[in-house]
């Protein structure tokens, strides 16, 4: 052991001395041999010759001695690395292409991995976050109930002993901000931000300034262990009641107030209530959420903001997410067991009909802003994440396959180098190791480039995300500090990639170097490696094609969603009035304001018609429908159909045609007990019959509606007319089945005002001054139907999914084209002799080109076919998000496939031309 170590150390540290000793020793032996032969009577020259014959190659002996001494490992490693670097430098073109290809593959993986980590596997923003846990109940229905009512929070907080502190976060609300000095124009900030430009934000304009405010329990900051940057955190409940306090985030302080130090201690108004700013929370502090709000408010002051809601006392209002810090020495399963005991107690306090009134079990998991534990994600979400990871992983595999192709092609040109090294005494193992070292170097280099690039990319992304939303939406925090985990991930991938793609070509080239069979037959390509190439290419094409087709279908669908005829005029303007809560606005006062506003609006130039109703965009409430006067029960109902309340002039204002029958009578006291049906609803309820004069009853029992909503339960309604269908932003188009009821005149104030004008662009800027002149406290949002549709999920979801899928697909296409190019170049080189013979025998150049292209396009076609099958599967999965398209979208399929075939053909054509330039004489003489 010791002698072994000493020898290795000496070999390493005194390499020169050891080498010269080896020289001396072997020369001594040689001289002795010569002496002996001279003594036996040979002339010295002949003696030397004989001795040299016996001795053999001294370099080979030395190499074996080095190996025997154990010098080799570290030393030859260093040698391999030196040699590898030299080779990579000499073949700069190859190195750059290979490194960039790999870096692209690795970079895509790093970005995906980091993003996943940032969103799903993110700890709470707290001191010692490992001690924090999320609290939820697994309800009777199997759903995870992560939002508790405030009374439930109090019960848990006061009764559980496993925790050192239990906090509640009521989530973000948008409050009006006033008295802050200066003002940020909300409209312009929405336009100026990235999210605004992408159309992610509602472009509705408002006459007020808003601020994103998070309402949290008073102990929030102390339990998280966060000290304020300046000032102090909330006082106790009694102090707060005496003088309302608010904390401001550092991010908002900088973005809205330019870091004005005088802000501390000033008073601002949120929803008209005065609050004193007592502290500034640290930069980027997001607490239990993904984003930094503008203000932090204590829960006990919530009633000041919303006097009409009863959040603090209503046990059925589930709005608080709960987080806790484990008491020292308590394990998470012990805490869960304790909370389980209390779950039964909570259940007993709830309405027995509600989901929360049925038996439930406690669920605790390590603290994270993500609202459910990852293993309870819905199957679709898991499947989606898996698909993305698979696609991203495939990009890496494609990149590796490409580099392997490049290597394989290069192995041919390095054949002479390999045989030279073999005949100089290198063992085959040594050659393989040298090539592996070279590839590992390449992998590391690519890893370093990828890490650097993705780091820069993520940094840029983070600052884009941070500025993406206008200041009244808070600041999204996208932490991208490259942690050790991510670094290890890149490192492992790049090394594994280096070894992985290095292995096959290493064996291949050492085989070509030693195998006499190949030496004798260098003009043809080995069928085995070509098959491998073909599989690589087919797989690349298939995956990239499937991604691109999916992206194209999503894009197509979002364009379609936008262009489709909705059955109404999309330029109608929606004015939604928001009355402040509290005693100021009684129903009568609201009604009077709406009537006054309508009169004033009607006097404005270009205004053609005004009505009050919900916009036909976001869908309606549903009711069970029964015919022939029966009460709608589970067994007697004909269908669940949407209903909406409208005024008599609704159809004319929105441009919806009345197909037959008549409209509602103009208002005079109580609305008439009659309904108008959409065409689809009429066909569904009275298939093949005339619905006019028919009678139906509606039942909303068990359907969602708010406390003071108008409900159509009760008397039978007579059908008086049928109108054209309309369609809003629902995915399935179920809102085409619609029952119109007449809106009572005393409920106008509960519905938005819809205005048909000649030119909305001229009309909209004039609204805010008008409203300020009527009632400066009134808050109003104005938006055209078209703008509302643009931010709806049917438009936005497919387009953002396409935004993710298309770059990945494009990268795939690029890599596939590079792979095809490399492989074809390789085949052309390998088959030079064959082409030479064919040409010598009289084959025309066109035939040669045809042969090459045919050879290359076969795997491409196989890949296209496989990719289409994959895409059919993908479109089946996406069918919910695809708006108004058939499962197989012909344009996307044909268009993208054609694009792929063209790119592949081009990639194959360029190197194939070289085969045509082969001079038969040169090709054959080459032997």
């Amino acid at each position, binding site marked *: 052991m010791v002698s072994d170590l000493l020898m290795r150390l000496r070999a390493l540290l005194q390499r020169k001395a050891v080498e010269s000793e080896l020289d001396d*020793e*072997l020369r001594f032996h040689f001289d002795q041999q010569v002496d002996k032969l001279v003594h036996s009577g040979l002339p010295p020259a002949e003696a030397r010759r004989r001795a040299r014959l016996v001795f053999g190659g001294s370099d080979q002996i030395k190499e074996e001695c080095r190996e025997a001494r154990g010098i080799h490992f570290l030393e030859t490693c260093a040698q391999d690395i030196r040699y590898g670097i030299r080779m990579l430098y000499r073949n700069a073109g190859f190195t750059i292409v290979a490194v960039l290809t790999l870096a692209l593959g690795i970079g895509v993986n790093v970005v995906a991995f980091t993003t996943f980590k940032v969103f799903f596997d993110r700890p709470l923003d707290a001191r010692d976050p490992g001690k924090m846990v999320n609290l939820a109940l697994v309800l009777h229905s199997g759903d995870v109930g992560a939002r508790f009512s405030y009374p439930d929070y109090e019960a848990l907080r006061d009764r559980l002993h496993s925790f050192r502190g239990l906090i509640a976060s009521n989530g973000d609300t948008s409050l009006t901000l006033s008295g802050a000095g200066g003002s940020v124009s909300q409209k312009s900030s929405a336009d100026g931000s990235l999210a605004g430009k992408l159309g992610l934000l509602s472009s509705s304009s408002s006459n007020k300034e808003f601020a994103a405010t998070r309402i949290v329990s008073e102990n929030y900051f102390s339990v998280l262990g966060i000290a304020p940057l300046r000032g102090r955190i909330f006082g106790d409940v009694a102090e707060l009641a005496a003088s309302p306090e608010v904390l401001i985030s550092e991010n908002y302080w900088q973005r809205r107030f330019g870091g004005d130090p005088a802000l501390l201690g000033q008073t601002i108004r949120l929803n008209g209530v005065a609050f004193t700013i007592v502290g500034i929370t640290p930069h980027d502090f997001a607490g239990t959420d993904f984003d930094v709000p503008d203000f932090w408010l204590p829960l006990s002051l919530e009633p000041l903001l919303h006097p009409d809601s009863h959040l603090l006392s209503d046990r059925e209002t589930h709005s608080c997410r709960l987080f806790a810090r484990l008491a020292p020495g308590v394990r998470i399963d012990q805490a869960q067991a304790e909370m389980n005991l209390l779950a039964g107690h909570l259940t007993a306090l709830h309405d027995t009909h509600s989901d929360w009134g049925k038996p439930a079990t406690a669920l605790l998991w390590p603290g994270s802003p993500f609202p459910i534990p990852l293993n309870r994600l819905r199957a679709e979400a898991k499947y989606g994440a898996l698909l993305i990871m698979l696609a991203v992983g495939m990009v890496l595999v494609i990149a590796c396959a490409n580099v392997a192709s490049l290597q394989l092609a290069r192995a041919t040109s390095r054949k002479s180098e390999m045989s030279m090294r073999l005949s100089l005494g290198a063992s085959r193992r040594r050659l393989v190791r040298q090539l592996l070292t070279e590839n590992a170097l390449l992998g590391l280099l690519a890893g370093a480039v990828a890490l650097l690039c993705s780091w820069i990319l993520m940094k840029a992304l983070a600052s884009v995300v941070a500025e993406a939303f206008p200041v009244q939406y808070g600041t999204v925090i996208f932490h991208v500090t490259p942690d050790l985990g991510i670094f290890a991930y890149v490192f492992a991938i790049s090394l594994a990639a280096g070894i992985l793609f290095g292995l096959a070509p290493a064996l291949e080239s050492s085989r070509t170097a030693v195998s006499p069979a190949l030496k004798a037959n260098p003009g043809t390509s080995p069928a085995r490696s070509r098959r491998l190439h073909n599989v690589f290419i087919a797989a690349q094409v298939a995956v990239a094609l499937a991604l691109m087709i999916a992206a194209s279908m999503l894009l197509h669908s979002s364009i379609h969603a936008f262009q489709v005829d909705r059955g109404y005029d999309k330029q109608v303007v929606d004015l939604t009035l928001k009355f402040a809560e509290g005693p100021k606005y009684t129903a009568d006062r609201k009604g009077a304001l709406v009537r006054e506003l309508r009169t004033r609006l009607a006097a404005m130039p270009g205004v053609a018609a005004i009505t009050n109703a919900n916009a036909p965009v976001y869908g309606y409430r549903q009711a069970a429908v029964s015919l022939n006067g029966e009460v709608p029960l589970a067994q007697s109902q004909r269908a669940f159909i949407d209903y909406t309340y409208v005024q008599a002039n609704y159809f004319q204002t929105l441009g919806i045609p009345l197909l037959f029958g008549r409209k509602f009578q103009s208002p005079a006291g109580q609305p008439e007990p009659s309904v108008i049906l959409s065409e689809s609803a009429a066909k569904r309820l009275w298939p093949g019959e005339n619905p006019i004069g028919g009678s139906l009853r509606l039942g909303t029992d068990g359907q969602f509606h708010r406390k003071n909503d108008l409900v159509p339960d009760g008397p039978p309604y007579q059908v008086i007319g049928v109108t054209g269908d309309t369609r809003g932003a629902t995915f399935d188009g179920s809102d085409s089945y619609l029952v119109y009821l007449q809106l009572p005149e005393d409920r106008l104030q509960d519905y938005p005002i819809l205005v048909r004008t000649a030119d909305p662009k001229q009309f909209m800027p004039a609204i805010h001054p008008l409203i300020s002149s009527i009632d400066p406290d009134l808050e109003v949002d104005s938006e055209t139907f078209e703008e509302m549709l643009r931010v709806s999920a049917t438009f936005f979801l497919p387009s953002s999914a396409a935004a993710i899928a298309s770059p990945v697909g494009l990268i795939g296409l690029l890599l596939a084209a590079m792979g095809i190019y490399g492989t074809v170049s390789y085949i052309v080189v390998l088959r030079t002799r064959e082409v030479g013979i064919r040409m010598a025998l009289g084959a025309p150049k066109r035939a040669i080109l045809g042969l090459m292209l045919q050879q290359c396009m076969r795997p491409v076609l196989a890949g296209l076919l496989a990719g289409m099958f994959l895409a059919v599967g993908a479109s089946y999965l996406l069918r919910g998000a695809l708006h108004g398209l058939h499962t197989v979208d012909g344009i996307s399929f044909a268009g993208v496939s054609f694009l792929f075939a063209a790119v592949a053909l081009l990639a194959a054509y360029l190197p194939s031309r070289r085969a045509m330039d082969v001079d038969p004489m040169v090709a054959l003489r080459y032997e």
Partner: protein
Amino acid sequence: MSGQTVDLPQGTLDLLILRTLALGPQHGWAVSERIHQVSSKVLQVRQGSLYPALHRLERAGWIKAHWGTSENNRRAKYYELTRSGRKQLAADQNEWRKLTAAVDQILAPS
């Protein structure tokens, strides 16, 4: 060199080197000459095998090397057995005897 030489069976070279060095420190050339002579010129150790074997044995700690002066006054590297080399030699010899005896028994005409 001549038709009389026999190839060494695998693994016996180490035994021969250790046995030869048991007589006293020697340089590599002397070891090969001695094996050649003692075996009545039947066994010829090639340099290509001898020196790697010497270095391997040195690394195993069974022999150690030092530089000395040869009979014709040249610097030469001498190898000698260490204590663990002696033990190894005894064990190897024992094993070899058992092996050859067994092989002889099988080959002997019954």
